[in-house]
């Protein structure tokens, strides 16, 4: 069943910078070597200031070697470089050699070791943007997507080669597009999308291109580079690598500085601030503060480096939500979430979905009617104030404010880590609030949310896990009751839309039976076991309660449950 977006303007956007050599990401990769050296140098200085005495530094290095060797023993990946064991064995040997020496003798050796480590990390993290590869990828993606779309949709001979449909018919981009394009010309844009699926990175890459923006640099999970098809896309799109297995201080500081310095140099960036994909299907509530903090640090550095007569560049944060009917990995994600809930244990990154599954999914996605929408939020400054079209920060009372003032103490521009940590927390809260505000409610979200909560209310004595243990066959909702509840909840959603607390897809409006039909058809559309459907008597049933829980979570956090039951 086709969902037609009424407001889909399908507009084409001209590139804001015509020639690739003008792109910040290209300039960065052209000077790759110098850039990596700068990152390594500043990371070195940072760690030295964090661990000022030789003893502290040696302890830190020893901990790093230990962790790295544990990682190699337990969890090696295809992307890991082959010379890794050798490198760390050498570091260990060098550390052993100085173990019994005096601090004065230790210091120069330890400094050198640190330098080697951060240089290696900086090189490992660095992306490799190549214009030729970028162009080629872009064309391949465009070409094959068009073939898939047209071949699948128009059942006429020769349709395969037509260009009647484009990706824009399947992926709707809504929100503050014009503002985003303006801001990308005025300063450095940091896009911060929600993260539900591995597909997100490719999707966002496509969105950025189709909005006419130059390529952004990504902080992509290194695990994605294990998949060849992803690795190719990522590399050509200017991705840098984030290895979540490495939690040691030298690595984390190098990573943060990589991002900070790239921002200072004006490279538009993309973070998934939630860190990993949302396991529960909920919109992120807790963001990772490390990378987010680099935006604040970069902005402060820009102010501090400002020369007389110049205006420091400004960094803009743009929240984005990706709205899906279907998430390929949902069954595994929710299982992981449920099995780990309540305990803080390490979650292995499992990717059971190889390149083949992905292609299959893409094919299904194009042939069956199911759409994705991308909501672009209003641009923010690094303190979470909205910015206007000229890039000025505007406070809640409509007054223009100077972002520099946030870093001024006693009349002087100062660096204060504790202050900036607090600012990072404030920014993260603001981004979460924006996510909820720009999130577009789909019919499939509505039906999943209503059905799950109705079952929850019908079993007041069961907690979440108790409910999830019930056999699916025992659960049935009379259609009339379900319909009325959907109507009630949708009414509240409308009210919240008026208050600007969330956004809705245009297909949510109209005849409620039609909306429910759409919702049921689309919710988790490609799963073998459907989270929600109607049985022969017309009643609402589920084949997989865990999945239903996952899709229902999309609307958690809006206090809608009081309108159910």
């Amino acid at each position, binding site marked *: 069943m086709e969902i037609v977006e009424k407001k889909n303007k399908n507009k084409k956007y001209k590139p804001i910078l015509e020639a690739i050599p003008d792109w910040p990401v290209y300039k960065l990769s052209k000077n790759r070597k110098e850039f990596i050296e700068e990152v390594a140098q500043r990371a070195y200085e940072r760690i030295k200031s964090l661990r000022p005495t030789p003893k502290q530094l040696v302890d830190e290095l020893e901990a790093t070697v230990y962790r790295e060797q544990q990682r190699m023993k337990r969890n090696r990946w295809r992307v890991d470089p082959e010379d890794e064991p050798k490198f760390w064995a050498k570091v260990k040997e060098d550390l052993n050699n100085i173990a019994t020496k005096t601090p004065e003798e230790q210091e120069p050796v330890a400094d050198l070791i640190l330098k080697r480590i951060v240089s290696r990390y900086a090189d490992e993290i660095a992306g490799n943007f190549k214009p030729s590869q970028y162009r080629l990828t872009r064309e391949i993606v465009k070409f094959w997507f068009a073939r898939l779309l047209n071949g699948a949709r128009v059942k006429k001979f020769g349709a395969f080669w037509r260009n009647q449909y484009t990706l824009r018919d399947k992926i709707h981009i809504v929100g503050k597009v014009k503002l985003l394009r303006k801001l990308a010309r005025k300063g450095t844009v940091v896009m911060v999308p929600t993260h539900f699926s591995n597909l997100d990175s490719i999707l966002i890459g496509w969105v950025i291109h189709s909005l006419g923006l130059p390529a952004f640099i990504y902080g992509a999970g290194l695990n994605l580079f294990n998949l060849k098809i992803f690795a190719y896309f990522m590399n050509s799109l200017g991705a840098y690598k984030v290895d979540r297995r490495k939690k040691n201080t030298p690595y984390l500081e190098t990573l943060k500085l990589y991002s900070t310095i790239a921002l200072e140099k004006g490279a538009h960036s993309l973070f998934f601030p939630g860190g990993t994909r949302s396991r529960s299907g909920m919109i992120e509530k807790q963001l990772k503060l490390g990378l987010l903090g680099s935006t604040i640090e970069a902005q402060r550095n820009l102010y501090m480096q400002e020369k007389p007569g110049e205006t420091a560049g400004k960094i803009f944060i743009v929240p984005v939500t990706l709205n899906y009917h279907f998430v390929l990995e949902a069954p595994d994600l929710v299982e992981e979430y449920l099995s780990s809930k309540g305990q803080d244990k390490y979650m292995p990154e499992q990717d059971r979905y190889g390149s083949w599954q992905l292609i299959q999914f893409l094919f299904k996605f194009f042939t069956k009617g199911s759409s994705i929408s991308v909501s672009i939020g209003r641009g923010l400054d690094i*303190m979470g*104030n909205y910015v206007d079209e000229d890039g000025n920060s505007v*406070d*809640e*009372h409509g*007054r223009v*404010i*100077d*972002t520099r*003032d*946030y870093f*001024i*103490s*006693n*009349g*002087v521009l*100062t660096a*204060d880590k*504790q*202050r900036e940590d*607090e*600012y990072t927390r*404030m920014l993260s809260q603001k981004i979460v609030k924006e996510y909820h505000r720009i999130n577009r409610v789909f019919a499939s979200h509505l039906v999943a949310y209503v059905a799950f909560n109705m079952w929850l209310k019908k079993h007041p004595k069961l907690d979440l896990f108790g409910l999830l243990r019930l056999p699916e066959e025992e659960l049935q909702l009379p259609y009339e009751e379900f319909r009325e509840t959907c109507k009630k909840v949708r009414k509240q959603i409308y009210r919240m839309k008026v208050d600007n607390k969330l956004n809705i897809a245009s297909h949510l409006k109209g005849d409620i039976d039609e909306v429910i039909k759409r919702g049921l058809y689309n919710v988790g559309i490609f799963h073998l076991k459907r989270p929600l459907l109607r049985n022969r008597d017309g009643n609402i049933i589920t084949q997989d309660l865990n999945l239903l829980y996952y899709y229902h979570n999309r609307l958690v956090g809006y206090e809608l449950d009081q309108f159910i039951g």
Partner: protein
Amino acid sequence: MNSTNSLADKPVAVVGSGNFGTAIANLIAQNRRVLLYTRSEESAQKINATHQNKGLVLHENIKAESDLATIAKECDVIFPIIPSAYFRSVIKQLSPYLHPYHVLIHGTKGLDIRLPKGATIEETPKLNRKQVKTMSEVIREETSVVRVGCLAGPNLSKELMAQHPAATVIASPFNEVIDIGTKLLRNDYFQVYGNNDLTGVELAGVLKNVIAIAAGALSGLGYGDNAKGLLISRGVVEMIYLGRALGGNTKAFLGVAGVGDLVTTCNSSLSRNYQVGYQLAQGKTLSEILAATTEVAEGINTVRTAKKCADFYKVKAPITNALYRVLFEKLTVKQALQYLMRYPLNVDIDFLDDPVGA
């Protein structure tokens, strides 16, 4: 923080020239020049001519000023010390002149309530955190200032003016704000402690006023120290439960701004809130008491707000409830005491095992 002294001679502002504001101005004046805000140009002139405010002698570093624009322009650090009932409106007036480089440390122990148009506090049965704000939250809502803090602790104005030894807590999520506040206030007889739990410290300062009224009432009935010990210890428990429901952490209530301030106010006939309780016990009605004084006893409004919050968040708050009925429902103090003594609650301390409060 290594603050440069290049601007050290910039004055500091105290907005609000009541007893407490004046006492704080006098403390800061020992370290810095102070602009003391007073609403009218006339009274500013009068204060500057006599170097006195409400009969209190002012330090020579203090100058009165009636223009908020001047205050914000001249001072980077501002201490708003205004009764909670006028807090929001004064901050609104000040707001257009403020910038994110300003630092605001308030000294107001009250809560702000915002109701939908047409609603009155009397008709609103329950209150939640969307309607009830602390003073720092008001500052954040109304201005572009983010570096906000508060000061709270056993600080009876008269004793401060007489330079008796005392201490205060400066609370702020920003260590920078705590440092600035400490440098400005600290001297040989005034100690300053820091706390990062701004909400907790604000709530401790606010909620203790409820218990202070109850302490006054006990004394007014002529009861002695057993009763007071009972009240203070149960009072702390009640403050912690309510405080946690409203967003504070347990620790703030056990420090100088919590227990410290509570013990002081419950033992001091200098405290206005204590005075209210004392007179209630003597049989006076609330309106009689209010008619007889010009000073603001924050505790009266706090009782009402706290009671309605406790109902919303389903927190047991027997002392607050009893006082509410005395103040607004014509229960006598004696009856309230009977109600409390029969209250079925007999676990002494049960908030320390709870990880939430850690």
